[in-house]
């Protein structure tokens, strides 16, 4: 199977290279057959990489431990579902996963894009091919990056999968993030194609909008599941540690969020064309930058792959793509003149601009903090650590400004807002925010940041409620619809707008949950069986934990030591919580990794009881525990679900909202002429 895999990789490399070369240097504009051949190269590339992937999966499921990757990341007793996730668990497999998924997206972009944009498609195919074959080239030419590399001997069993990756979250989290990262190549390819073809009206935005939303949704889900995995698996009771690799996933999400807002201005008013182009290029480059950080080992991170020469490939690719993309953008600069001008800063366009400023400001501060240790070492020769205290100090004010703008944006009219409009729109949301903050002060909350965050959350929530209420009321007045029918019709007829509002609510829930997580109660205890410890939660409840004992047994591929606590809240028994130590073993019963910890959690909307069995001080059932009460954590996961729902609603096909943008997209033949004419 390794021969087939190697052959497929080489076939993919050559086909992709051929398609990419023809797209950029072939005179396909006058030869439809050649243009078709270029777009079909995407399908051939995809087919070759699918064969390579099947070859690797065959090796994994067949326990072919002569393949170094299979021996390094699987074992005979690894459960089947983790054999699936082993495909992307290591550096080499994840490179192949990236390449094959990108080739599938490239092929789908060719298959699903309307023929109205056929003049761009060969360029899109060429760019997607080039990015894909870069990953194939890394596998073929970088040291120790080929997933089909064979060992000089065949071990009887593999090393197995890292215990921390043996978690359902890790089956979903990496692919989701990868899907977000990878699918961003397609909007980038459309943007580059529009620049190359000089078709710079709103057409390329229509062609790639769904792709950008798809990427954003995958990134959002991937980040949220990553937070969940960190919470349930790592045992520190938090969701975000400002680790460089975590930051690397946040950066493209921030710039893509900015793009999804500013692109609305381009669709509605024909403005910000240059800015949108720069944003989509920057977002793509940040995905490559994130990959570079994760795979180079240049910055210390708990999440990164081992240090390897692969990083240099990514650095070179990052530089070359950046230079070429921005040079192309520079050469097309005159063609990207705005069609209209901003009439007032107090307008929705103005609010979107400031929203972009906040998002890019946060992205810059995260990037700056991530790279500052390298800068400090270069300038002062001193290594420093930039950890959570730094990022919290810099980003909390920026994040709250963004939350404020989340509430302000929908309240201001397009073009120019009158004073009467502002007064009418802001009265209720501002009252909602002030009431929320006042109620919290009355309840005893004295932390300034928390009050601002929760007050702003109240402001945004009332804004969204007001938007829904006014829409429903208008439908009732115009069509006599009931509340429920009015709500359904309102949302279904303008999915993008109301889906966006649902996403806004999801985001405010994240802010609420982050605010709650700033007030954990934590203690460490040693307990004999029958002995109890107490912990008072931030909401004033007293939890009593009684140690029941430790039981040891074998399950699947591990020896389990399960410590159980009985939990009572304010004296009333609420149940038991079990936390485990797991010693993973290979099929011969030999330990494969250090014992790992599985936390025990009891969750409700108010607070999570979070228990970590740390081990035993004397080899008896006497157990050491970390006990935590984490307020409001459940709202992360509710927010994640709502965000997914809102995102899907926004993406759902159809609806009248795209008409404005389509009106802006000139007929195929008129594109370049009218734009060039306008500029010159």
């Amino acid at each position, binding site marked *: 199977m390794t021969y087939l895999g190697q052959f497929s990789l080489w076939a993919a490399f050559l086909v992709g290279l051929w398609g990419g070369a023809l797209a950029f240097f072939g005179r396909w504009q006058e030869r439809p057959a050649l243009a078709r051949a270029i777009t079909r190269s995407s399908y051939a590339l995809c087919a070759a990489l699918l064969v390579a992937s099947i070859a690797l999966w065959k090796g994994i499921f067949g326990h072919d431990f002569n393949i170094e990757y299979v021996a390094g990341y699987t074992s005979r007793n690894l459960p089947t579902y983790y054999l699936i996730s082993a495909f992307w668990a290591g550096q080499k497999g994840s490179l192949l996963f990236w390449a094959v998924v990108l080739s599938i997206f490239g092929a789908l972009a060719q298959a699903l894009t309307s023929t109205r944009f056929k003049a761009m498609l060969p360029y899109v195919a060429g760019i997607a091919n080039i990015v894909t074959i870069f990953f194939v080239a890394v596998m073929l030419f970088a040291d120790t990056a080929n997933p089909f590399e064979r060992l000089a001997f065949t071990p009887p069993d593999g090393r197995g999968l890292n215990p921390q990756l043996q978690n359902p979250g890790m089956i979903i989290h990496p692919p989701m993030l990868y899907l977000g990262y990878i699918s961003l190549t397609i909007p980038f390819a459309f943007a580059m194609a529009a620049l190359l073809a000089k078709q710079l009206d709103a057409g390329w935005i229509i062609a790639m909008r769904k792709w950008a939303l798809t990427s954003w949704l995958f990134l959002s889900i991937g980040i949220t599941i990553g937070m969940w995995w960190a919470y349930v698996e790592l045992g520190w*009771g938090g969701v975000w*540690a400002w680790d460089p690799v975590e930051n690397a996933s946040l950066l493209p999400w921030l710039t893509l969020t900015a793009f999804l807002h500013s692109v609305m201005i381009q669709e509605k008013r024909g403005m910000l064309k240059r800015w949108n182009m720069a944003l989509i290029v920057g977002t793509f480059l940040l995905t490559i930058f994130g990959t570079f950080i994760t795979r180079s080992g240049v910055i210390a991170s708990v999440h990164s792959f081992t240090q390897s020469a692969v990083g240099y490939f990514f650095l070179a690719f990052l530089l070359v793509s950046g230079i070429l993309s921005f040079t192309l953008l520079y050469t097309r600069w005159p063609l990207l003149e705005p069609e209209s001008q901003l009439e007032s800063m107090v307008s929705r366009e103005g609010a979107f601009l400031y929203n972009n400023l906040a998002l890019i400001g946060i992205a810059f501060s995260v990037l700056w903090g991530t790279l500052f240790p390298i800068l400090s070492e270069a300038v002062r020769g001193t290594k420093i650590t930039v*950890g959570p*205290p730094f990022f919290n100090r810099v980003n909390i004010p920026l994040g709250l400004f963004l939350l404020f703008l989340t509430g302000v944006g929908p309240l201001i009219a397009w073009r120019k807002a009158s004073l009467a409009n502002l007064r009418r729109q802001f009265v209720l949301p501002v009252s909602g925010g002030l009431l929320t903050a006042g109620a919290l002060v009355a309840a005893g909350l004295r932390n300034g940041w928390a009050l601002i965050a929760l007050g702003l959350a109240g402001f945004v929530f009332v804004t969204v409620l007001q938007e829904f209420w006014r829409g429903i009321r208008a439908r009732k007045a115009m069509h006599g619809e009931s509340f429920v029918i009015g709500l359904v019709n309102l949302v279904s007829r303008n999915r993008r707008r109301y889906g966006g509002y649902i996403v806004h609510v999801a985001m405010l829930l994240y802010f609420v949950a982050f605010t709650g997580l700033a007030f954990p109660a934590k203690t460490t205890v040693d307990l004999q069986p029958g002995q109890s410890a107490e912990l008072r939660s931030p909401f004033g409840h007293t939890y009593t934990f009684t140690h029941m004992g430790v039981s040891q047994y074998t399950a699947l591929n591990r020896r389990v030591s399960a410590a159980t606590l009985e939990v009572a809240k304010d004296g009333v028994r609420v149940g038991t919580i079990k936390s485990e130590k797991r*010693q993973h073993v290979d099929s011969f019963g030999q330990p494969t990794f250090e014992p790992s910890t599985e936390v025990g959690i009891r969750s409700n909307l108010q607070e999570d009881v979070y228990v970590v069995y*740390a081990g035993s001080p004397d080899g008896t059932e006497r157990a050491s525990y970390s006990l935590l009460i984490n307020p409001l954590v459940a709202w992360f996961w509710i927010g994640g679900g709502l965000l997914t729902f809102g995102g899907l609603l926004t993406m759902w096909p159809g609806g009248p909202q795209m008409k404005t943008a389509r009106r802006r997209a000139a007929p195929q033949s008129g594109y370049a002429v009218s734009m060039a004419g306008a500029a010159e």
Partner: protein
Amino acid sequence: MRRSRRQFLGWTVAATSGMVLRPLVAQDVAADTAQVQGDFLRDPSSVGRLRDTVTAIDNDPAIIAIERQLRCTCGCTLDIYTCRTTDFTCTYSPALHKEVVGMFEQGKSAEEIIIFFVDREGEKILMAPVAEGFNMAGYLVPGLAMATAGLVLAAWLSRRRVAVAASANVPDAAAPPVDPEAMARLQRALDEVES
């Protein structure tokens, strides 16, 4: 097979010693805690290395506050407190914790303890750089960049607005006269639609 036999022997020794020692240990601890003494674990190696007993000072807020400012040197990127209460395989954070506790018990202030670690390990042991000298750039550049961008944006927008206003004031000979009342009605309707 050899290792399995060794493992079997280990378990046998542990179980036997458990049976022999248990009544003794139980008597000893029962005097202190009056709690039920648990059995020896069948396989103590599965729960990781033996841990130090938790004492009150391990949860002392002053100790925790110090440890939260210092990074564990194991390479995990966590602070000492988080690492010692999270990564139970780490041998660095418990050792660093003992040092912090030792100095604290000697009466050293938080500042003195932190300076001791910075002198020994370098500035990288701090979870966030001290806001002085070149490090100020780390704290100030994002805010300054954003403020500058905001000002530039505001200046650019107001210049654009002037340009738009100027072009709007040029009378269009071909355009019919506009009824101000109709315009006001139109604006109200637009506000209604767009809000």
